[in-house]
């Protein structure tokens, strides 16, 4: 027998180890669920980690009210299948209550408002660890993240003063009121995620596969034509064959023109593509360090 794991199985084992550490070391963890492929992967790995028992923590979805309807539908089915509790933090509610103020204009996005709602949801639920599906290959500030990332009582990240993290020993010590963000799939790349989802035949929302959709172009990015984005007069809506590489809010998630309608074709496309997956995310393009700035404030 060959005592060797392939790279996907080794990554899987590492992530399961981290997820189990969270369940063992924290009193009240929660899994941040966005509806994207990385959080779908996270729930799948969590299911594996505790099988045949249920996932011993709830899912937390920060709903901006600008999600694709397909995302919400998929989320509700998944939650039912896993038998876990779903907690929804609503950005719309926070706007209605006057806790946050909505941006206005053509490029208005609720992305920034998510942070306040996330921090409030974590505080209300008294969660001491929030599991997230962020990966180091996604973005340069995320490349510096730990598996166990310490947050102060304001939920802030201090990138210059992170705890060294060695071997697979995770320091989860904290003061009262502080919490941790934990990123079990830190070492996965976009391609690893797709290869794994294909290998394991994990169900995914249709948004990821090529489909026909009413879209328009803005600053070189293809956006879905929906009520929540205000279009300029010259922005013309056309039917295009597209798929989404990442799924966030409809307002800031760019689609890519693609014919990849199976996982195999997606893997081929990802393997040969020359643009990073967040290249279509306008929330990252606001400045050179926009992800770092948001993360310091408590974004995940």
């Amino acid at each position, binding site marked *: 027998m060959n005592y*060797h794991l392939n*790279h996907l199985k*080794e990554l899987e084992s590492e992530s399961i180890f981290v997820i189990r550490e969270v369940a063992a070391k924290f009193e009240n963890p929660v899994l941040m669920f966005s509806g994207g492929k990385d959080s779908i992967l996270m729930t799948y790995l969590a299911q594996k980690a505790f099988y045949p028992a249920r996932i011993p923590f709830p899912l937390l979805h920060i709903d901006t009210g600008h999600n694709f309807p397909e995302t919400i539908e998929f989320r509700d089915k998944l939650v039912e299948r896993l038998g876990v509790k779903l907690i929804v933090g609503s950005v719309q509610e926070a706007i209605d209550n006057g806790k946050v103020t909505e941006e206005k204009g053509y490029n208005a996005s609720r992305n920034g408002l998510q942070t306040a709602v996330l921090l409030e949801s974590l505080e209300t639920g008294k969660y001491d660890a929030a599991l997230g599906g962020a990966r180091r290959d996604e973005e*340069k500030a995320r490349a*510096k993240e730990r598996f166990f990332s310490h947050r102060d009582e304001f939920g802030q990240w201090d990138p210059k003063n992170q705890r060294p993290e*060695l071997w*697979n020993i995770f*320091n989860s010590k904290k003061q009262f009121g502080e919490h941790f963000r934990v990123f079990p799939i830190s070492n996965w790349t976009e391609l690893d995620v797709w290869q794994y989802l294909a290998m394991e035949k994990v169900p995914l929302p249709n948004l990821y596969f090529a489909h026909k959709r009413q879209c328009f172009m803005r600053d070189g990015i293809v956006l879905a034509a929906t009520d929540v984005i205000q279009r300029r007069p010259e922005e013309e809506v056309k039917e295009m064959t597209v798929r989404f590489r990442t799924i966030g809010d409809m307002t800031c998630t760019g689609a890519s023109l693609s014919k990849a309608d199976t996982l195999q074709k997606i893997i081929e496309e990802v393997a040969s593509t020359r643009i990073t997956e967040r290249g279509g995310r306008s929330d990252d393009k606001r400045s050179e360090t926009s992800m770092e700035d948001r993360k310091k404030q408590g974004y995940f």
Partner: protein
Amino acid sequence: MSDYQNMELLRFTTAGSVDDGKSTLIGRLLYDSKSIFEDQYAAIEASSLRRGEEDVNLALLTDGLKAEREQGITIDVAYRYFSTPKRKLIIADTPGHIQYTRNMVTGASTANVALILIDARNGVVEQTKRHAIIASLLQIPHLVVCINKMDLVDYREEDYEKIKDDFTSWGSKLDINDMHFIPISALKGDNVVDKSERMDWYGGSTLLYYLENVHIGSDHNLIDCRFPVQYVIRPNTDEYHDYRGYAGRIGGGVFKKGDKVMVMPSGFTSTIKKIDTFDGEVAEAFAPMSVTMLLEDEIDISRGDMIVRENNVPDSEQDIDVMVCWFNEKPLQLKGKYTILHTTQEARCIVKEIRYKLDINSLHRDLEDNDIKMNDIARISIRTTKPLFTDAYRKNRITGSIIFVDESTNETVAAGMII
């Protein structure tokens, strides 16, 4: 690409300063293996221009934080990912500027291969020795020494051979089994991804070929069975009413269904009834698999216990000698108390004795110096509140490693390798 299910994962660490050409080398590996994306390249091109630099500064790829870009330094370990048809590679890129030892130790802790760069014009310098000593202390299984900037010494074989001899004779006192040398020019691309046409005298492989082919199948301990229990799975459902599974990651050896096992610290023995996973039962489990073990007998087992074979047990001691690398601005306190984390166990310890401080450049042991500050390496003796189940670090990196946590600040203050 259809073969991705047979790819292996290799983790390697690089250490050095900008002057060694490390960033250029990583940039070259990423660029030549088509792992830099167009928008990434465009972004660093624009940054370089804004900063008034003539060439595209590939170091900006890894320096992600605002402070790093402002100060032109790398603060932290940066992880980079790329893959070839054979392997997925994770680079832990550790800077030589500040807090070098701390970062190098962090990067080295999970690496299969340490990559050391030597400037062909300067030969073996202090920094080279420091990197090699850390690679040896952290027991990185393979060391590859790249003698870089060969273009600046006219690709002369004598220069390469001399550096190789110097390093080999100095390195003989290190604890490194597998050492490999490659003459390269990261700038010109010689022997990085493509074989150099300017060094006919070199018959060996390129760096990428080495990284793709170095044998890492034996890097995990497959002899001594160690299973630190991480979490107990009790579904409490009708279907799995009596299910009691011990979840964890194999720390060493190969466990099989039907094996006689012993549980530490209780000493109770039992037989493996089943090794379970979400994908079904497996006949065997080996490091680093995450599995759930079920035993024939009902015994009380909880997190922190270790399942082993009766005839091959780890040490179970409260007095432990450790080589530590100190990470914190607050120096090591003799007689001080710290929280320690080891496998899935947590305990407290007192520092009984500082045996010596190791000079990281010369390997000299200073028995008099008890002042252990940030980035220092020392051998100490500790006494723990309960027995830890340990192996020597050189035998098993999982059961031989330990971290120290300050009890007032909660910071990770040291990494330890059990002797």
